[in-house]
């Protein structure tokens, strides 16, 4: 981390306190898990956790950038539903269609995201509202397209979800590489720095003549692209897409971002925190599974984590 953060150590420690807490929690959960079940300790279970977290990691990555600018992308859930339904619907079991459809899906995700960005810039409406509206529109469209699971994918397609390279799940490796690239972008590209500046003080960014529009288009476009990736991955995992595939991802994608220490008000945070957040949540669900806790309570646990995380990270309240 040293190489990535030239901020003085004291400030850096203070800034990253939360991330350290998350990392510590991760370790504690691992130890705890190892105690409660022998099966937990197996390599296959650990790989399983990585595998399960891939979809969430992809969506949360895009979400992190949107939140860093002080915005949010609430259309991710519907977007995933639409894109994954289209993926299996258009491939319709034909091997020859896999590549063109995959490319098309990624482009479509990018395009929808750019639409979000354009609306935010043109209408001057808060991203929350724009993406909420977009979410409803996309949900309607996907239901127009199909009311249930659509089409199918060739069996070889689930290689993406279950395949391995060098014994590691493809998805997990891909995630690590992608997160690293985005982290480098945020740190070393001018546009990456502007993402932080816009999130820190949007009016100031305008006064400074920073390319706010380009930042917005990049961020929401990227979030859409990530949804495309997630949709393809999830279709591969479940072998078919249906209009509610993405339903839970809207909230779920925000949780790891907040847990990972990115401020909802923008300007502070990063993608590594998000990745830790993703692993923490997947690990927690895994441990709860081993403890035979029903999914209902897992839902409660997740809600409580969001509440805890946002109240911990909230910046000191100003009283005047």
């Amino acid at each position, binding site marked *: 981390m040293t190489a990535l953060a030239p901020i003085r150590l004291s400030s850096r420690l203070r800034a990253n306190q939360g991330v350290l807490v998350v990392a510590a929690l991760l370790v504690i959960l691992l130890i705890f898990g190892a105690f409660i079940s022998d099966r937990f300790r197996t390599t296959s279970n650990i790989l399983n956790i990585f595998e399960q977290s891939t979809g969430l990691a992809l969506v949360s990555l895009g979400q992190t950038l949107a939140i860093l600018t002080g915005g949010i992308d609430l259309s991710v859930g519907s977007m995933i539903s639409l894109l994954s339904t289209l993926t299996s619907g258009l491939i319709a079991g034909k091997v020859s269609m896999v590549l063109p459809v995959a490319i098309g899906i990624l482009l479509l995700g990018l395009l929808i995201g750019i639409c979000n960005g354009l609306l935010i810039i043109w209408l001057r409406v808060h991203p929350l509202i724009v993406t909420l509206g977009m979410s409803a529109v996309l949900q309607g469209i996907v239901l127009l397209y199909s009311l249930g699971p659509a089409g199918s994918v060739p069996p070889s397609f689930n290689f993406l979800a279950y395949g391995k390279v060098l014994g590691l799940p493809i998805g997990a490796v891909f995630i690590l590489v992608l997160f690293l690239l985005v982290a480098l972008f945020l740190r070393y590209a001018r546009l990456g720095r502007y993402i932080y500046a816009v999130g*820190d003080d949007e009016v100031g960014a305008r006064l400074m003549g920073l390319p706010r529009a380009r930042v917005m288009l990049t961020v929401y476009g990227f979030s859409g692209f990530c949804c495309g990736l997630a949709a393809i991955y999830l279709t591969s995992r479940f072998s078919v897409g249906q209009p509610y595939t993405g339903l839970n991802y809207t909230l779920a994608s925000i949780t790891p971002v907040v847990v990972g220490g990115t401020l909802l008000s923008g*300007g502070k945070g990063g993608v590594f925190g998000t990745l830790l957040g993703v692993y923490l949540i997947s690990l927690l669900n895994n441990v709860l599974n081993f403890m035979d806790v029903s999914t209902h309570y897992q839902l409660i646990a997740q809600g409580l984590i969001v509440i805890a995380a946002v109240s911990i990270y909230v910046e000191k309240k100003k009283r005047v």
Partner: protein
Amino acid sequence: MLNLSGISKSFIGVQALSGINLDVRAGEIHALVGENGAGKSTTIKIVAGVYKPDAGQMEFEGKPVQWARPADAKNAGIHVIYQEFVLFPHLTVAENIYLGHERRNRFGFVDHARTRQDASDLLRKLGVDIDPQILVSELTVADQQMVEISKALVHKVKLLILDEPTAVISGREADLLFARLAALKAEGVAILYVSHRLEEIFQIADRVTVFKDGAHVATKDIGDVTRDRLISMMVGRDLKDIFPPKKPKGEPGKVVLKAENVSVEGRVRNAGIEVRAGEITALAGLVGAGRTELAMGIFGGLPMSSGSVWIDGEKVDAITPATAISKGVGFVTEDRKGQGLAMFLDVAANISAANLSAVTRNGLIDRRLENEIARKEIDNYRVVCRGPATSVATMSGGNQQKVIVARWARTSRKVLILDEPTRGVDVGAKTEIYRIMRGLAGEGIAILMISSELPEVVGMSDRVVVMREGAISGELTGANISEEAIMSLATQHPTGKVPTAEVLAQ
């Protein structure tokens, strides 16, 4: 370099600029002066591309220009140092300085090491000792101002605009700034310098332009005007006609508000103050000296880390705005829109807002009574509006201020605290607010006025308490009240070093 002619701009209901002219030449320092609300900030924002003028022509480097956005003005070589800094709290000093002009390596990536090194060099060249690696939010206000200034030196500017750059910095830092400006001037940069401090204008400027109430009054070579002439051009009349007569000499009033040992975290250290019935006490000092924070602490609006408050001889523990109000204390805040007015409500609702019980019958607001009260106060304070149901958002600063004073004068019969009561108010309304304040003091109310405008402090107060760096540095009464005396208390160095020729904020 820059030439504005006939520029006009109005905001909802308020004419901010009416046909102003201004020309700034290459290689000169052009001072722009005027009272609050004279239209200086609006002019700057038009030149910077933040606002679009309603009418008039802007020429830059001899060509007519129209900025669609601030980036256009910036790309043309205009750099503005705003009074409210444009700094990004979660970025480091170095990143802030080079934001938009990132140091990059040959692959086009941001070179953090070089950014750090260059920032460090730049700050040293400027003569200040700031660690470029810390977050801007950890700097003092004065250091933030120096970072703001250093941003202007990063790239080639043709026109540099500074809006009240010395409001928060001390004499030594101001001298560093002036040296820098002289160097830029020698390089042929045009500099537009907005300031309240006439001393420094005479020290550095070549020409001066005066605005008043959104109109151009005069542009003169600095050698052709005197200080008194400048003031009367800014104010539009002689000073002695503005301030009402002070309280006649005699017995000092009874102490109604007393605070001891007040500390507000990071801003105020062990400050004590007494405010007397029938008198206007001013709280003076540099911007950032902790005046507002002290008053807010006493009012309960900010948490005190220590201290006791007595109102009318009675000790009040754990004070909150609600208890302060119930004891007869009122607070007219500096930030009218952000902390004073309920912007979406009308005049009547704003007047009754501090004492809703007075207009509440069985839990319901008696709208007729509320309107009746409002009509009375509108007459009383000569508020210009269409009636009790006028939206305050559509009113001018002076009339909004009168509404707020009317609100508090109804409930706060013991102590009224006014923070910068005439900020953003035109001269006419200013005179009226002074008259109202003196009138309220005459009714036996103890008035505490926080003000950065020295003539106002000298012209209005019976007693002046001066703060420096969060502590009380002295008190002046009667004939001892002078701009020089206040200045010396506000800036003299606590370590016993020789006081430099420091000047008071504005």
